[in-house]
Protein backbone atom coordinates (compact mmCIF):
# COMPACT_ATOMS: atom_id res chain seq x y z
CA UNK A 1 0.00 0.00 0.00
CA UNK A 2 1.35 3.41 -0.92
CA UNK A 3 1.22 6.46 1.30
CA UNK A 4 -1.54 8.28 -0.60
CA UNK A 5 -3.70 10.48 1.57
CA UNK A 6 -7.21 10.65 0.22
CA UNK A 7 -9.87 12.85 1.79
CA UNK A 8 -12.16 11.36 4.40
CA UNK A 9 -15.89 10.96 3.76
CA UNK A 10 -18.77 10.10 6.09
CA UNK A 11 -21.21 7.45 4.91
CA UNK A 12 -24.95 7.25 5.52
CA UNK A 13 -27.04 4.22 4.57
CA UNK A 14 -30.78 3.89 4.34
CA UNK A 15 -31.79 0.35 5.09
CA UNK A 16 -34.55 -1.47 3.27
CA UNK A 17 -36.94 -1.04 6.17
CA UNK A 18 -35.79 2.37 7.37
CA UNK A 19 -36.98 5.78 6.28
CA UNK A 20 -33.90 7.74 7.27
CA UNK A 21 -30.24 7.50 6.33
CA UNK A 22 -28.07 6.53 9.29
CA UNK A 23 -24.41 7.20 9.78
CA UNK A 24 -22.49 3.94 9.43
CA UNK A 25 -18.85 4.98 9.23
CA UNK A 26 -16.26 6.69 7.08
CA UNK A 27 -13.90 5.97 4.21
CA UNK A 28 -11.24 7.51 1.98
CA UNK A 29 -11.90 8.59 -1.63
CA UNK A 30 -10.61 11.17 -4.07
CA UNK A 31 -14.03 12.30 -5.31
CA UNK A 32 -17.75 11.89 -4.68
CA UNK A 33 -18.26 9.17 -7.27
CA UNK A 34 -15.44 7.08 -5.82
CA UNK A 35 -16.84 7.68 -2.34
CA UNK A 36 -20.23 6.26 -3.37
CA UNK A 37 -18.55 3.23 -4.95
CA UNK A 38 -16.38 2.61 -1.91
CA UNK A 39 -19.41 3.04 0.33
CA UNK A 40 -21.22 0.44 -1.74
CA UNK A 41 -18.25 -1.94 -1.46
CA UNK A 42 -17.58 -1.34 2.23
CA UNK A 43 -20.98 -0.85 3.78
CA UNK A 44 -23.57 -2.65 1.62
CA UNK A 45 -21.84 -5.97 1.04
CA UNK A 46 -24.54 -7.82 2.92
CA UNK A 47 -27.56 -6.02 1.49
CA UNK A 48 -27.57 -3.48 4.30
CA UNK A 49 -29.05 -0.70 2.26
CA UNK A 50 -31.04 0.65 -0.65
CA UNK A 51 -29.64 4.18 -0.70
CA UNK A 52 -26.35 5.89 0.13
CA UNK A 53 -25.28 9.39 1.08
CA UNK A 54 -21.66 10.49 1.32
CA UNK A 55 -20.35 13.82 2.54
CA UNK A 56 -16.83 15.12 2.96
CA UNK A 57 -15.97 14.89 6.64
CA UNK A 58 -14.44 18.36 6.44
CA UNK A 59 -17.88 19.75 5.50
CA UNK A 60 -19.35 18.72 8.83
CA UNK A 61 -19.53 21.32 11.57
CA UNK A 62 -19.61 19.70 14.97
CA UNK A 63 -20.63 21.08 18.32
CA UNK A 64 -17.78 21.71 20.74
CA UNK A 65 -17.62 19.05 23.48
CA UNK A 66 -16.44 21.76 25.89
CA UNK A 67 -19.76 23.52 25.36
CA UNK A 68 -21.83 20.41 25.96
CA UNK A 69 -22.99 21.66 29.34
CA UNK A 70 -24.14 25.02 28.01
CA UNK A 71 -25.83 23.45 25.00
CA UNK A 72 -27.54 20.41 26.43
CA UNK A 73 -27.86 20.69 30.22
CA UNK A 74 -30.64 23.34 30.14
CA UNK A 75 -33.00 20.76 28.66
CA UNK A 76 -32.52 18.47 31.60
CA UNK A 77 -35.04 20.07 33.99
CA UNK A 78 -37.75 20.64 31.40
CA UNK A 79 -39.54 17.36 31.65
CA UNK A 80 -42.77 19.04 30.48
CA UNK A 81 -41.33 18.92 26.98
CA UNK A 82 -41.87 15.18 26.96
CA UNK A 83 -45.41 14.40 25.81
CA UNK A 84 -46.10 12.31 28.88
CA UNK A 85 -48.65 14.49 30.70
CA UNK A 86 -51.70 13.66 28.68
CA UNK A 87 -54.50 11.26 29.43
CA UNK A 88 -54.75 9.00 26.42
CA UNK A 89 -58.37 8.34 25.43
CA UNK A 90 -59.05 4.61 25.34
CA UNK A 91 -60.14 4.90 21.68
CA UNK A 92 -56.57 5.70 20.70
CA UNK A 93 -54.97 2.37 20.11
CA UNK A 94 -51.61 3.17 18.61
CA UNK A 95 -49.66 5.98 20.17
Amino acid at each position, binding site marked *: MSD*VRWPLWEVFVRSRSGLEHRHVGSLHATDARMAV*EHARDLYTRREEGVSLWVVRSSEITASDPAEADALFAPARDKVYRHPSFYDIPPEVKTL
Partner: protein
Amino acid sequence: MSARAEFLLRLADTSLILAQQLGAWVGHAPAIEEDLGLANVALDLLGQARLLLTYAGELEGRGRTEDALAFLRDPEEYRNLALAERPNGDFAQTIVRQFLLDAYQHELFGALTSSSDARLAAIAANAARETRYHVRYSGGWVVRLGDGTEDSHARVARALSALWPYTAELFDPDPLDESMAREGVAPPLADLEPGWRAAVGTVLSEARLELPPTAAYRWYGKRGEHGETLGHLLAEMQYLQRAYPGATW
Protein backbone atom coordinates in the same frame (compact mmCIF):
# COMPACT_ATOMS: atom_id res chain seq x y z
CA MET B 1 -16.01 -32.18 -25.20
CA SER B 2 -19.11 -30.86 -26.96
CA ALA B 3 -19.01 -27.56 -28.78
CA ARG B 4 -21.29 -25.99 -26.24
CA ALA B 5 -19.20 -27.12 -23.27
CA GLU B 6 -16.13 -25.75 -25.03
CA PHE B 7 -17.90 -22.43 -25.56
CA LEU B 8 -18.87 -22.29 -21.88
CA LEU B 9 -15.21 -22.78 -20.97
CA ARG B 10 -14.34 -19.66 -22.97
CA LEU B 11 -16.79 -17.62 -20.92
CA ALA B 12 -15.84 -19.26 -17.63
CA ASP B 13 -12.09 -19.06 -18.07
CA THR B 14 -12.08 -15.36 -18.92
CA SER B 15 -13.97 -14.63 -15.69
CA LEU B 16 -11.85 -17.05 -13.67
CA ILE B 17 -8.49 -15.70 -14.84
CA LEU B 18 -9.62 -12.12 -14.27
CA ALA B 19 -10.78 -13.02 -10.76
CA GLN B 20 -7.41 -14.56 -9.93
CA GLN B 21 -5.59 -11.51 -11.33
CA LEU B 22 -7.66 -9.04 -9.31
CA GLY B 23 -7.25 -11.13 -6.19
CA ALA B 24 -3.51 -10.52 -6.39
CA TRP B 25 -4.14 -6.81 -5.69
CA VAL B 26 -5.58 -7.41 -2.25
CA GLY B 27 -3.12 -5.86 0.18
CA HIS B 28 -1.37 -3.93 -2.60
CA ALA B 29 -4.01 -1.55 -3.95
CA PRO B 30 -3.57 2.22 -3.54
CA ALA B 31 -5.89 2.24 -0.51
CA ILE B 32 -7.64 -0.35 1.64
CA GLU B 33 -10.96 0.78 0.17
CA GLU B 34 -9.59 -0.14 -3.25
CA ASP B 35 -8.44 -3.56 -2.00
CA LEU B 36 -12.04 -4.24 -1.19
CA GLY B 37 -13.39 -2.74 -4.42
CA LEU B 38 -11.17 -4.97 -6.55
CA ALA B 39 -11.90 -8.00 -4.37
CA ASN B 40 -15.64 -7.46 -4.76
CA VAL B 41 -15.31 -7.46 -8.53
CA ALA B 42 -13.09 -10.54 -8.30
CA LEU B 43 -15.69 -12.38 -6.24
CA ASP B 44 -18.42 -11.56 -8.76
CA LEU B 45 -16.21 -12.94 -11.55
CA LEU B 46 -15.37 -16.04 -9.54
CA GLY B 47 -19.07 -16.67 -8.96
CA GLN B 48 -19.73 -16.44 -12.71
CA ALA B 49 -16.86 -18.82 -13.42
CA ARG B 50 -18.15 -21.37 -10.92
CA LEU B 51 -21.64 -21.50 -12.46
CA LEU B 52 -20.25 -21.72 -15.99
CA LEU B 53 -17.63 -24.36 -15.15
CA THR B 54 -20.19 -26.48 -13.33
CA TYR B 55 -22.47 -26.35 -16.34
CA ALA B 56 -19.61 -27.11 -18.75
CA GLY B 57 -18.61 -30.11 -16.63
CA GLU B 58 -22.18 -31.44 -16.66
CA LEU B 59 -22.46 -31.08 -20.42
CA GLU B 60 -19.15 -32.82 -20.87
CA GLY B 61 -20.50 -35.76 -18.87
CA ARG B 62 -17.18 -37.08 -17.66
CA GLY B 63 -17.80 -36.21 -14.06
CA ARG B 64 -15.50 -33.19 -13.93
CA THR B 65 -16.61 -30.69 -11.31
CA GLU B 66 -15.98 -26.95 -11.26
CA ASP B 67 -12.91 -27.62 -9.10
CA ALA B 68 -11.53 -30.27 -11.44
CA LEU B 69 -11.90 -27.88 -14.36
CA ALA B 70 -10.38 -24.93 -12.53
CA PHE B 71 -7.50 -26.66 -10.77
CA LEU B 72 -6.57 -29.63 -12.93
CA ARG B 73 -6.40 -28.24 -16.46
CA ASP B 74 -3.08 -27.25 -18.00
CA PRO B 75 -2.57 -23.84 -19.62
CA GLU B 76 -3.17 -25.09 -23.16
CA GLU B 77 -6.57 -26.41 -22.06
CA TYR B 78 -7.59 -22.95 -20.85
CA ARG B 79 -9.90 -21.01 -23.15
CA ASN B 80 -9.77 -17.48 -21.71
CA LEU B 81 -9.36 -14.44 -23.93
CA ALA B 82 -5.71 -13.47 -24.24
CA LEU B 83 -6.50 -10.00 -22.88
CA ALA B 84 -7.56 -11.49 -19.52
CA GLU B 85 -4.14 -13.04 -18.91
CA ARG B 86 -2.10 -9.92 -19.61
CA PRO B 87 -0.08 -9.21 -16.45
CA ASN B 88 -1.43 -6.90 -13.76
CA GLY B 89 1.42 -4.44 -14.38
CA ASP B 90 0.79 -1.16 -12.59
CA PHE B 91 -2.65 -0.10 -11.36
CA ALA B 92 -3.35 1.66 -14.67
CA GLN B 93 -2.72 -1.51 -16.66
CA THR B 94 -4.98 -3.55 -14.39
CA ILE B 95 -7.73 -0.95 -14.67
CA VAL B 96 -7.52 -0.63 -18.46
CA ARG B 97 -7.55 -4.42 -18.90
CA GLN B 98 -10.51 -4.62 -16.56
CA PHE B 99 -12.40 -1.82 -18.27
CA LEU B 100 -11.98 -3.23 -21.79
CA LEU B 101 -13.20 -6.64 -20.62
CA ASP B 102 -15.96 -5.27 -18.38
CA ALA B 103 -17.35 -3.36 -21.35
CA TYR B 104 -17.09 -6.53 -23.43
CA GLN B 105 -18.78 -8.73 -20.84
CA HIS B 106 -21.46 -6.07 -20.47
CA GLU B 107 -22.37 -6.48 -24.15
CA LEU B 108 -21.86 -10.24 -24.14
CA PHE B 109 -23.79 -11.18 -21.01
CA GLY B 110 -26.51 -8.73 -22.00
CA ALA B 111 -26.94 -10.56 -25.33
CA LEU B 112 -26.66 -13.99 -23.69
CA THR B 113 -29.73 -13.28 -21.55
CA SER B 114 -31.73 -14.18 -24.68
CA SER B 115 -29.73 -17.34 -25.39
CA SER B 116 -31.64 -20.37 -26.66
CA ASP B 117 -29.95 -22.21 -23.78
CA ALA B 118 -32.16 -21.37 -20.80
CA ARG B 119 -29.55 -22.21 -18.16
CA LEU B 120 -26.92 -20.07 -19.84
CA ALA B 121 -29.48 -17.25 -20.17
CA ALA B 122 -30.14 -17.41 -16.42
CA ILE B 123 -26.43 -17.32 -15.57
CA ALA B 124 -25.99 -14.40 -17.97
CA ALA B 125 -28.86 -12.46 -16.40
CA ASN B 126 -27.14 -12.60 -13.05
CA ALA B 127 -23.74 -11.81 -14.52
CA ALA B 128 -25.08 -8.90 -16.57
CA ARG B 129 -26.31 -7.20 -13.41
CA GLU B 130 -22.92 -7.56 -11.76
CA THR B 131 -21.10 -6.43 -14.88
CA ARG B 132 -23.06 -3.18 -15.02
CA TYR B 133 -21.37 -2.20 -11.78
CA HIS B 134 -17.96 -3.44 -12.96
CA VAL B 135 -18.03 -1.14 -15.99
CA ARG B 136 -19.02 1.77 -13.83
CA TYR B 137 -16.19 1.05 -11.38
CA SER B 138 -13.38 0.48 -13.89
CA GLY B 139 -14.68 3.18 -16.25
CA GLY B 140 -14.65 5.67 -13.37
CA TRP B 141 -11.00 4.86 -12.77
CA VAL B 142 -10.07 5.19 -16.45
CA VAL B 143 -11.52 8.71 -16.43
CA ARG B 144 -9.92 9.57 -13.11
CA LEU B 145 -6.48 8.42 -14.25
CA GLY B 146 -6.73 9.70 -17.83
CA ASP B 147 -8.00 13.08 -16.74
CA GLY B 148 -5.74 13.15 -13.68
CA THR B 149 -2.08 14.05 -13.37
CA GLU B 150 0.54 13.98 -16.11
CA ASP B 151 1.90 10.75 -14.64
CA SER B 152 -1.48 8.99 -14.37
CA HIS B 153 -2.42 10.07 -17.90
CA ALA B 154 0.87 8.73 -19.29
CA ARG B 155 0.42 5.41 -17.47
CA VAL B 156 -3.14 4.84 -18.60
CA ALA B 157 -2.25 5.82 -22.19
CA ARG B 158 0.66 3.38 -22.15
CA ALA B 159 -1.55 0.60 -20.81
CA LEU B 160 -4.18 1.29 -23.45
CA SER B 161 -1.76 1.05 -26.36
CA ALA B 162 -0.15 -2.09 -24.90
CA LEU B 163 -3.47 -3.88 -24.37
CA TRP B 164 -5.44 -2.69 -27.38
CA PRO B 165 -4.04 -5.28 -29.85
CA TYR B 166 -5.56 -8.03 -27.69
CA THR B 167 -9.07 -6.67 -28.23
CA ALA B 168 -9.15 -7.91 -31.83
CA GLU B 169 -9.86 -11.43 -30.58
CA LEU B 170 -13.01 -10.28 -28.80
CA PHE B 171 -15.01 -9.76 -31.99
CA ASP B 172 -13.28 -12.18 -34.30
CA PRO B 173 -15.43 -15.32 -34.54
CA ASP B 174 -13.96 -18.73 -35.23
CA PRO B 175 -15.98 -21.81 -36.32
CA LEU B 176 -17.04 -22.52 -32.73
CA ASP B 177 -18.36 -18.99 -32.19
CA GLU B 178 -20.17 -19.23 -35.52
CA SER B 179 -21.84 -22.52 -34.68
CA MET B 180 -23.01 -21.11 -31.34
CA ALA B 181 -24.49 -18.13 -33.15
CA ARG B 182 -26.27 -20.40 -35.63
CA GLU B 183 -27.84 -22.38 -32.79
CA GLY B 184 -28.92 -19.18 -31.07
CA VAL B 185 -26.84 -20.06 -28.02
CA ALA B 186 -24.72 -16.92 -28.36
CA PRO B 187 -24.89 -13.69 -30.35
CA PRO B 188 -22.74 -13.27 -33.46
CA LEU B 189 -19.61 -11.67 -31.98
CA ALA B 190 -19.50 -8.95 -34.61
CA ASP B 191 -22.89 -7.73 -33.35
CA LEU B 192 -21.32 -6.84 -30.02
CA GLU B 193 -18.64 -4.58 -31.42
CA PRO B 194 -20.60 -1.37 -32.15
CA GLY B 195 -22.01 -1.20 -28.61
CA TRP B 196 -18.62 -1.94 -27.09
CA ARG B 197 -16.86 0.59 -29.25
CA ALA B 198 -19.40 3.29 -28.38
CA ALA B 199 -19.17 2.59 -24.63
CA VAL B 200 -15.39 2.44 -24.65
CA GLY B 201 -15.15 5.54 -26.85
CA THR B 202 -17.33 7.59 -24.50
CA VAL B 203 -15.19 6.77 -21.47
CA LEU B 204 -11.91 7.24 -23.33
CA SER B 205 -12.89 10.67 -24.60
CA GLU B 206 -13.93 11.70 -21.10
CA ALA B 207 -10.52 10.45 -20.00
CA ARG B 208 -8.84 12.54 -22.73
CA LEU B 209 -7.54 9.37 -24.41
CA GLU B 210 -7.60 8.42 -28.07
CA LEU B 211 -9.15 5.22 -29.41
CA PRO B 212 -6.07 3.37 -30.73
CA PRO B 213 -6.00 2.21 -34.36
CA THR B 214 -7.27 -1.32 -34.97
CA ALA B 215 -4.86 -4.04 -33.98
CA ALA B 216 -2.41 -5.37 -36.52
CA TYR B 217 -1.98 -8.83 -35.03
CA ARG B 218 -4.22 -11.40 -33.42
CA TRP B 219 -3.77 -13.75 -30.56
CA TYR B 220 -6.34 -16.43 -29.79
CA GLY B 221 -6.47 -17.29 -26.14
CA LYS B 222 -9.92 -18.75 -26.67
CA ARG B 223 -8.34 -21.47 -28.82
CA GLY B 224 -5.73 -22.27 -26.19
CA GLU B 225 -2.92 -20.04 -27.46
CA HIS B 226 -1.42 -18.54 -24.33
CA GLY B 227 1.60 -16.55 -23.29
CA GLU B 228 3.93 -17.59 -20.51
CA THR B 229 2.15 -15.47 -17.91
CA LEU B 230 -0.82 -17.84 -17.82
CA GLY B 231 1.48 -20.70 -16.80
CA HIS B 232 2.78 -18.73 -13.82
CA LEU B 233 -0.70 -17.64 -12.84
CA LEU B 234 -2.07 -21.19 -12.95
CA ALA B 235 0.94 -22.59 -11.11
CA GLU B 236 0.07 -20.36 -8.18
CA MET B 237 -3.69 -20.87 -8.43
CA GLN B 238 -3.49 -24.64 -8.80
CA TYR B 239 -0.58 -25.36 -6.47
CA LEU B 240 -2.58 -26.70 -3.54
CA GLN B 241 -4.77 -29.08 -5.54
CA ARG B 242 -1.79 -30.31 -7.54
CA ALA B 243 0.38 -30.88 -4.47
CA TYR B 244 -2.40 -32.32 -2.30
CA PRO B 245 -4.99 -33.78 -4.67
CA GLY B 246 -8.51 -33.62 -3.30
CA ALA B 247 -7.56 -31.49 -0.29
CA THR B 248 -10.56 -29.76 1.29
CA TRP B 249 -11.11 -27.26 4.09
